[in-house]
């Protein structure tokens, strides 16, 4: 009889929120892989019921301190669908600008402080800064630009206060936005340097036949709208999301796990999915850098997601610059509307991938139902499947080293556990 072994990561580090990893082996055969999520549930979908719909972008922002804009954008678009509100082109552009700020801030944080240390052998970005001061300082400056944009347009970087159903509470004055331009010009060049640096890292030789899913929009790189599209070629209107994508409650997770189709299969959302499905709609500089560094698409190596994030930082800077340079304060800050009973849904692209919201509201403007599917709960099964495939290649008797390799793979997804709970802990158990 072979020995049972358990490999455990009690608490994953350099991820947002609390989770772990549990692997059970009999001999070298993998019996079970669980991304365990012990983040305490905060029950947002329940507490939203009975609240004024105008409060929803403020409340859902509190699901995640790292990507509050993703929750605000998804909720206002879903509520606007429920109330049949058509926003103006000016508001649409300002929302893209706000999302650019969040992509820059969130990606710069993940790339420099959370993930790059894995590739270079450090415990943290702060440790890494001692040997790579230029790279880390440049990264912190990029992150700061993202925050500055969020502060001007959103009122503050974490839990912005300026996002409203129908638009914004107040649109920025010309003299508030334009001073950002010189920093963003510097940032665009710096983001190119960052991406070249990321492309020079050593990537494990590991690819999988992923089903990747992101929004696709005919004219632009996806942020606030588009058709839900898979690399298999299938695509769906957002209103059909729930008939294709399913959530399931498993015992080892306070996050619900997503799967799609029949038979229900896992899928991959995030920057790699977006670049693979939308490369030709990246900004000019991002496309040029992708060509220069030889970033082949479709890219099926999850570790290269860090490079996809670099490309998206470039894109976000370039698009933000375009909006900043041509900015004229809009005639109206937000579109007026009347309350009515209805329901609506929307999907947008959070830094970590596709996020879906659906709401039902009553004639008094109160929420009667809320459904929120964050990116990490969609990636959770995919991460478990990746680990099953990756573990045999890295498994040694040194369980701490094995666990570190597993964590590095998990971090490719930039999991946001606070978000997904309604979500992560590595425990490896060997039977046998």
């Amino acid at each position: 009889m072979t020995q049972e072994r358990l490999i455990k990561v009690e608490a994953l580090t350099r991820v947002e929120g609390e989770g772990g990893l549990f692997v059970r082996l009999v001999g070298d055969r993998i019996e079970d892989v669980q991304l365990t999520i012990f983040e305490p549930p905060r029950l947002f979908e329940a507490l939203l019921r009975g609240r004024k719909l105008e409060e929803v972008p403020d409340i859902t922002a509190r699901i995640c301190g790292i990507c509050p804009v993703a929750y605000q954008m998804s909720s206002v678009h879903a509520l606007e669908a429920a109330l049949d509100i058509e926003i103006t082109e000016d508001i649409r552009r300002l929302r893209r600008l706000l999302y650019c700020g969040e992509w820059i801030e969130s990606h710069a944080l993940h790339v420099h402080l959370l993930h790059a240390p894995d590739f270079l052998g450090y415990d943290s970005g702060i440790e890494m800064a001692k040997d790579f001061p230029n790279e880390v300082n440049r990264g912190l400056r990029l992150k700061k630009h993202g925050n500055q944009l969020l502060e001007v347009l959103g009122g503050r970087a974490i839990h912005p206060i300026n996002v409203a159903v129908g638009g914004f509470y107040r649109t920025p004055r010309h003299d508030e936005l334009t001073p950002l331009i010189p920093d963003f010009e510097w940032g665009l060049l710096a983001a190119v340097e960052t991406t070249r640096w990321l492309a020079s890292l050593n990537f494990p030789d590991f690819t999988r036949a992923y089903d990747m899913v992101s929004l696709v929009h005919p004219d632009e790189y996806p942020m606030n709208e588009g058709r839900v599209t898979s690399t298999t070629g299938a695509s769906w209107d957002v209103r059909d999301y729930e008939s294709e994508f399913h959530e399931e409650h498993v015992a080892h997770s306070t996050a619900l796990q997503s799967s799609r189709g029949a038979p229900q299969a896992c899928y991959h959302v995030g920057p790699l999915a977006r670049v693979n499905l939308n490369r030709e709609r990246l900004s000019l500089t991002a496309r040029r850098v992708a060509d220069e560094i030889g970033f082949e698409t479709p890219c099926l190596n999850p570790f290269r997601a860090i490079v996809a994030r670099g490309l998206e930082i470039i894109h976000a800077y370039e698009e933000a610059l375009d909006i900043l340079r041509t900015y004229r304060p809009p005639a109206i800050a937000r579109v007026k509307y009347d309350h009515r009973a209805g329901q609506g849904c929307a999907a947008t692209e959070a830094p970590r991938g596709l996020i879906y919201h659906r709401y039902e509201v009553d004639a008094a403007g109160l929420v009667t139902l809320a459904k929120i599917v964050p990116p990490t709960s969609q990636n959770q099964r995919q991460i478990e499947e990746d680990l099953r495939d990756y573990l045999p290649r890295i498994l040694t008797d040194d369980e701490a080293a094995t666990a570190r390799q597993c964590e590095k793979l998990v971090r490719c997804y930039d999991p946001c556990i606070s978000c997904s709970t309604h979500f992560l802990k590595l425990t490896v158990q060997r039977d046998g």
Partner: protein
Amino acid sequence: MSSKPKVGVFKFASCDGCQLSLLAAEDELLTVAGKIDIAYFLEATSHIDEGPYDIALVEGSITTPTDAKRIRDIRQRSKFLITIGACATAGGIQALRNWADHDEFVRAVYARPEYIDSLATSTPIAEHVPVDFELRGCPINRHQLVEVIVSLVAGRKPKTPSHSVCLDCKRRGTVCITIAQGVPCLGPVTQSGCGAICPAYDRGCYGCFGPAKQCNTGSLCQQFLADGTPAPELVQLFRNYNGYAPEFRHESERLAELHPEDS
């Protein structure tokens, strides 16, 4: 305090936003990090030191039996325990369950409620262990966080203002949104710290930094009611991110009792 105090950052039920504020202090981050020994900070580093700690920064509220035990253990291993943010100091938005049927809440979100082990209430850290200093805000102000760390390193008491947001608006020169537009605003009863941003963006304050010292919520509500804001709206205005802070809690419960027909 010794020259390099050991700092632990701990998370309970929360959004990560307040601990992110430490990483969001880009200009100060590497300097501050040089002055302290980051002994436990899961979000930022894989280096884990089990303590004891000189300073524990605690984010989040207590919502599970496991967490109720964990905070007592952290308290025992920490010299100074500082709560950071509205969840840790007042229970957070998840404290809305304190006025609801928790089991029904769990059933509404999870298909298999039996997998979920959570408490019927979301409570602040101070209800479980003694707290040395509370930093307010949803999210906290990163400058205040840096001030707290720097002052503890220097061995002095942290200085954070306790006046109301209302005063900050006057300083900023923001036209009063309640007087000019009739919008209900919690600025007069909310502690300073955010920079009085909401009124500067044409909306009323919704109380992210919790009750200001000696706030007169009753008098403010009397005015809002007289101006035509329905009581249930005011109940909700007090019951959000700091809804379970005593002053806001009492006001919302008083309003709900006075106007049961509207609630």
